[in-house]
């Protein structure tokens, strides 16, 4: 199974054991700074009164990251955070960052991160962006970006070509991402 999903749509998904027990829900995803890969899921408890949990779910302990739930073999897969693992940007952390092209043009604001999810890995492939200088516009588009991801809480930097390959929604996003890849290869050659 392979699918695209926004981080905002992953947040709140249940973490379920193969026994069918929901042991937590996803609070956020931690992405590797260099490769944009999902390294860790941070968690909150389930139910109205439960807040954030200290324990995290590292990617290596995930049985499957599905469209409707994150599956784990059992409760012991949720562990105390390891300092080396929880460093990196959170998926929702870049929301609000300004999208700058490498030419220094501000094209909008990040409203979400798009993940490509495969059987054995998941990684960032683009942003949901509200267009317009400082995000003042009304149009929201899906913008593919190449790896490695250049992002801080303040800015994300994208190639100029990314702006040409935006789509209205996730339908057609893969094709746009392939188009961007081709365009960048041609630029480089």
């Amino acid at each position, binding site marked *: 199974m392979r699918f695209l999903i926004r981080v905002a749509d992953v947040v709140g998904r249940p973490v379920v054991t193969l026994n069918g027990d929901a042991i937590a829900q996803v609070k956020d995803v931690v992405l590797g700074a260099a490769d944009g890969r999902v390294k860790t899921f941070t968690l909150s408890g389930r139910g109205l009164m439960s807040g954030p949990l200290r324990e995290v779910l590292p990617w290596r302990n995930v049985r499957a990251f599905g469209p409707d739930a994150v599956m784990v073999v059992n409760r012991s897969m949720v562990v105390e955070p390891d300092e080396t693992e929880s460093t990196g940007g959170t998926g929702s952390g870049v929301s609000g960052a300004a999208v700058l092209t490498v030419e220094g043009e501000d094209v909008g604001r990040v409203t979400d991160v798009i993940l490509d999810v495969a059987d054995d890995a998941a990684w960032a492939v683009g942003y949901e962006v509200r267009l317009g200088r400082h995000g003042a516009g009304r149009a929201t588009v899906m913008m593919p970006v190449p790896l490695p991801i250049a992002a801080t809480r303040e800015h994300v930097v994208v190639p100029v070509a990314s702006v040409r390959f935006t789509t209205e929604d996730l*339908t057609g996003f893969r094709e746009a991402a392939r188009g961007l890849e081709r365009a960048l290869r041609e630029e480089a050659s």
Partner: protein
Amino acid sequence: MKRFGDVIRLPVVAADTAERVGKVTGVVLAPAPARVEFVHVHTVRGDELVAWAEVRAIGPDAVMINHVAGPFADASVSGRQSGPVGKSLLTDRGRRLGEVREVTFDEEDGRLVSLTTAADVLDGARLLGVGDFAVVITDQAIREADESGSGSASG
């Protein structure tokens, strides 16, 4: 073959004394092999779990058990009180297939035959677990390649 809907609310009667023990309120499933492990019975003492081995017959009008050997396991402390019907049906790949509407089992040996959702009938042998949140089955790549492009695949 019996459906969950056929046995729910049936009286449970001891074959040796003809005593009415209670009525069926559910079934508890277990994997490997997929089967009915307990029958959930409401008795005068409360909610109890009768092991499948104690069940002599599941008839059209009553569930017969071998002896009045109660009290049976207290369902509220065993932590296994939750039945499959009404729960989400998830695959081990994290895909939701719907809600479990019906469960079919072989009344001779308790083998789980199928799980039914509004859209599908799934092989009971695929069962991995029944928990507080969901019934989990192996994915087995049913309907592969439905790559979700719509993004908000929130079900």
